[in-house]
């Protein structure tokens, strides 16, 4: 929690020397509290006070970054319990667990397949974030070889599941050049793990039976000099996960409880009694940080990636659809052409209705800066000029042989102007609501 001006004032020299450029220490303290001044402007502040002030201004949940040879995953630094309060910032990383007991060629094949996995969701490229390689063999050389095999086909960030100093060292060696997460320090091995993590400068996961155990360990590790930590509360069920992850998030945010102010790692497939996809879905909604999947299934992964995208959308900046010309139900040159805006919900309502109606259609999605039809029209982002321009940009004349454009009923007023902007085109005024598209087309569109 941020300190108040008065709390900061107590930590300052209180000499009113003006060297910081402010008339009094109190005035400077107020500026610091408002984040309008920086502590370094005071040349006299004691080291002890500086450390206190710095830690008080640190984010309540530490940001942890994993880097691959290419690409990175950042988790943590969340500030709210509910997305509507502000937004969730750092999407949970989705990783796939591989074991070094698998044959090297098979590992390469599996990792290459998962590495190549990409899906397009409203113009957003979605993919798996990385791999968690486990030293299931307990043999450093085998582990090293497995990591090298994965790295030979993928540049994604890694999590190294290596429960001893020796294994961790072997893993770090193989992962040289990247910044993996080491998993995990526990009550027994924490000193050796801390040493490896510290030397390699990589983040370290922490494992314990309960929150008390986690908090104790993170403090020891901090003292040992490892700052970037990830909590593994070992949750294996829906209820356990919800309760533990909620508690951790609340402690971090509401009480600035530093020992648990870290992102969380979970393994939703660890318990075979549990439906991995549904527990992962819960963890995406409720406070997961790094989510390691047991199974790589394209269908389920697609659903989880989309859920993550949705939950982590900034409520103030709705998802926009890429402007362009969209095909629905494999339209040909005679299919109806409809214009709308690129607000995702607007697009989806229309695309869904057209799709459900069975009509093949072309949807001209204009760049209205993510606003709905009426809002965009009122803001001048969805006018005749814009529609005509985008019709040209996206070459509608090359797509359809007819010259009829259907516009939303709410902007019927645009039709005259649009006919001027698009000579040779007949502008048809469609229904106001997407749900009426089917009946509109039945009545008005004849081939």
């Amino acid at each position: 929690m941020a300190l108040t001006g008065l709390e900061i004032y107590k930590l300052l020299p209180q000499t009113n020397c003006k060297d910081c450029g402010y008339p009094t220490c109190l005035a400077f303290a107020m500026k610091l509290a408002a984040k309008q001044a920086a502590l370094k402007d005071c040349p006299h502040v004691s080291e002890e006070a500086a450390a206190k002030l710095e830690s008080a201004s640190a984010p309540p949940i530490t940001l942890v970054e994993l880097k691959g040879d290419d690409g990175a995953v950042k988790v943590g630094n969340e500030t709210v319990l509910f997305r509507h309060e502000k937004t969730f910032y750092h999407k949970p990383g989705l990783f796939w667990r591989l074991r070094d007991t698998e044959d090297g060629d098979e590992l390469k094949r599996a990792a290459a397949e998962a590495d190549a996995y990409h899906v397009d969701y409203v113009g957003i490229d979605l993919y798996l974030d990385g791999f968690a390689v486990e030293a299931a063999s307990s043999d450093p050389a085998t582990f090293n070889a497995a990591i090298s095999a994965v790295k030979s086909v993928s540049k994604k960030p890694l999590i190294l599941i290596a429960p001893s100093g020796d294994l961790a060292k072997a893993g770090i060696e193989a992962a040289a050049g990247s910044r993996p997460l080491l998993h995990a320090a526990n009550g027994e091995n924490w000193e050796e793990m801390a040493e490896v993590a510290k030397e390699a400068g990589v983040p370290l996961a922490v494992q314990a039976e309960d929150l008390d155990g986690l908090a104790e360990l993170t403090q020891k590790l901090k003292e040992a000099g490892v700052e970037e930590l990830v909590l593994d509360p070992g949750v294996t069920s829906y209820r356990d996960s919800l309760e533990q992850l909620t508690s951790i998030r609340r402690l971090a945010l509401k009480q600035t409880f530093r020992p648990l102010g870290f992102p969380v790692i979970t393994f939703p497939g660890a318990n075979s009694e549990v439906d991995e996809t549904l527990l992962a879905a819960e963890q995406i909604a409720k406070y997961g940080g790094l989510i390691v999947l047991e199974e790589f299934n394209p269908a389920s992964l697609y659903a989880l990636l989309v859920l993550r995208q949705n939950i982590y959308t900034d409520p103030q900046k709705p998802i926009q659809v890429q402007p362009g010309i969209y095909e629905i139900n494999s339209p040909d040159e005679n299919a109806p052409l409809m214009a709308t805006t690129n607000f995702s919900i607007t697009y989806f309502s229309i695309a869904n209705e057209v799709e459900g109606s069975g009509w093949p259609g072309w949807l001209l999605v204009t760049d209205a800066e993510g606003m709905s039809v009426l809002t965009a029209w009122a803001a001048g982002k969805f006018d005749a000029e814009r529609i005509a321009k985008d019709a040209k940009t996206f070459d509608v004349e090359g797509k359809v042989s007819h010259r009829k454009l259907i516009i939303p009923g709410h902007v019927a007023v645009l039709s005259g102007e649009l006919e001027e902007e698009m000579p040779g085109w007949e502008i048809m005024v469609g229904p106001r609501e997407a749900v009426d598209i089917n009946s509109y087309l039945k009545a008005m569109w004849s081939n």
Partner: protein
Amino acid sequence: MTIEIPKEKYTGAVREVTLGATADEGGTRAHTLTIGGESTLPYLQFEGTIPNRPALALEIRDRKPDDWSPLLLQAWGEAMDDPGEWAKAAEAAGADLIYMVLSLTDADGEPNTPEYARAAVRKVLDATSLPMAVVGPGQAEIDNELIVPVAEEAEGERLLLGICEEKNYRTIVAAALAHNHLVQSKTPMDVNLSKQLVILIHDMGLPLERIVMDPTTGALGYGIEYGYSVMERLRLAALGGDQMTQQPMLVNPGEEAWRVKEAKVGEGVPENWGDWERRALDWEAVTAIALVHSGANMLVLRHPETLRRVRSVLDDLLGSQS
């Protein structure tokens, strides 16, 4: 070190609403179904009580639908040819209640009739002893024309009737009042609109204990985040003591998920969308689970496998109950 888990103190609770009526209560249902009543955020039992489990409904139609996914046709098979058989199959699949949607037209495209709707509802009431919801096809005039005789036919059964929307609620509320039923109050993803319609319905004299609030949701990938956050805000308001937001929430992930391309279409989609059946089932189940965590008290589903999966999540979240 002993860490104390931070607990919230709430001043309000979700209102309890009971559907269905047994013989003693003037109906014919084997048991009633109560939803709502919780005094905490979803499933945080360490700080409040959750006296009732969310109800899982399976949607059926008064006739076999023309536009449902082949995957659903496969799951229900011949049962879909008869609403009574379909309801029985839904009961066998573990539904807490039957959610029946009346069709706009008959199989030949002729408008549905009050006589047909009435008979279909009667069939279901006779075929199963579960509590029941009946909603119209979603066009104001026809909804009213069909729901009024249904309300009369099922007098005293405490059906959930719908769908009440801002533009069309009076007739349905009046029918619920006259024949002792409940209503579904649906508004488009907005906290204030949700409250407002509850107030309007309540003003007509229907007790709050007979109103279920449907805040509307989008499917996964199709606006679920809007409904999700509206539900979280409504629930926080309810727990904060705002009376008119305390109705239990109904959502329809089945309808939403099964009309999107990811669930509906098996061919001509990107290869990375994966296996069609698994994707479709995950689409419905993941949509449902997100809404479970944003506070849904009743979920309407379409596929029996989704019901089974969501049920097992709820069993763990709340402890299994026989």
